[in-house]
């Protein structure tokens, strides 16, 4: 009797990996997060951002509003993602809060929180120029870091955000457009792709 025990071992490993991964975020939450980001960017563009290359002292006063705008977008996106993911997990009879979820969150939050604090420190020292690019870069890194614990193509979304952030850093003055592209359009595209995959199953 000569059985391929190598195949057994690799199959065990594969199943253990696959089964202990966190359930994927629902595609709809991606689309909604993208919409919030676009609306938030439009509000910032119309009301808070200094008009093209006008860095007078008056413009610095709006910093608090921009931060508030960002916090609102982030909160809305996160709350939407949590609600929709819980709903999806319930209909699949899966548990949402387990060891994998915790690892996912920790790995996601480390680059994100570090980046957020760094950007805030820079902003309070009146260095805003790199804000959009830094947000994209740190968010991309957070996604790549968390992707080990998810199903789906979060890793590619992370890479796309990262690349966009780097391009943004090379082209000063277009921060808002890159920000809207990364947090708005990319999320919507990613969400739509995920949604199509969910429907197919």
């Amino acid at each position: 009797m000569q059985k391929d025990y190598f195949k057994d071992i690799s199959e065990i490993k594969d199943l253990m990996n696959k089964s202990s991964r966190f359930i994927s975020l629902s595609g709809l939450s991606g689309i909604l997060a993208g919409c919030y980001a676009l609306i938030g960017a439009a509000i910032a563009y119309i009301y808070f951002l200094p008009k093209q290359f006008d860095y007078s002292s008056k413009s610095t006063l709006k910093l608090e509003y921009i931060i508030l705008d960002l916090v609102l977008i982030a909160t809305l996106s996160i709350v939407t993602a949590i609600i929709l993911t819980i709903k999806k997990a319930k209909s699949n009879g899966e548990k949402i809060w387990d060891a994998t979820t915790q690892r996912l969150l920790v790995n996601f939050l480390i680059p994100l929180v570090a980046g957020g604090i760094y950007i805030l420190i820079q902003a309070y020292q009146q260095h805003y120029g790199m804000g959009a690019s830094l947000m994209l870069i740190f968010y991309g890194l957070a996604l790549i870091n968390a992707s080990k614990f998810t199903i789906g193509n979060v890793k590619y979304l992370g890479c796309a955000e990262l690349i966009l952030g780097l391009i943004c850093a090379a082209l000063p003055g277009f921060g808002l457009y890159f920000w809207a592209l990364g947090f708005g359009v990319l999320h919507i595209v990613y969400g739509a792709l995920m949604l199509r995959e969910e429907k197919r199953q």
Partner: protein
Amino acid sequence: MSIIDNINKLFDHRIRLGIMSILMVNEKVNFKRLKELLEVTDGNLASHIKALEKAEYIIVEKSFIDRKPNTQYIATKLGRAEFKKHIEALEKIIKKQMK
């Protein structure tokens, strides 16, 4: 006693080995999820689950979610120990083949 003795006959099947692999790293797994992961039919999966249940390697836990029945499977202490023994035996065989 040869190493082959430690190879567990019950695990000498792709699906049963798969069920145990999944239950080793997950506290509880339901039928639907097992089916998805192993890509097998209902009847096929049920018969293999029954075999593992009979050997007391896994236990079944029935509950309801929104009035729909939800059956979860959990690996027992015995099942975990037997699975480890089986893996160690596989390792030994592979090491021998490599020599």
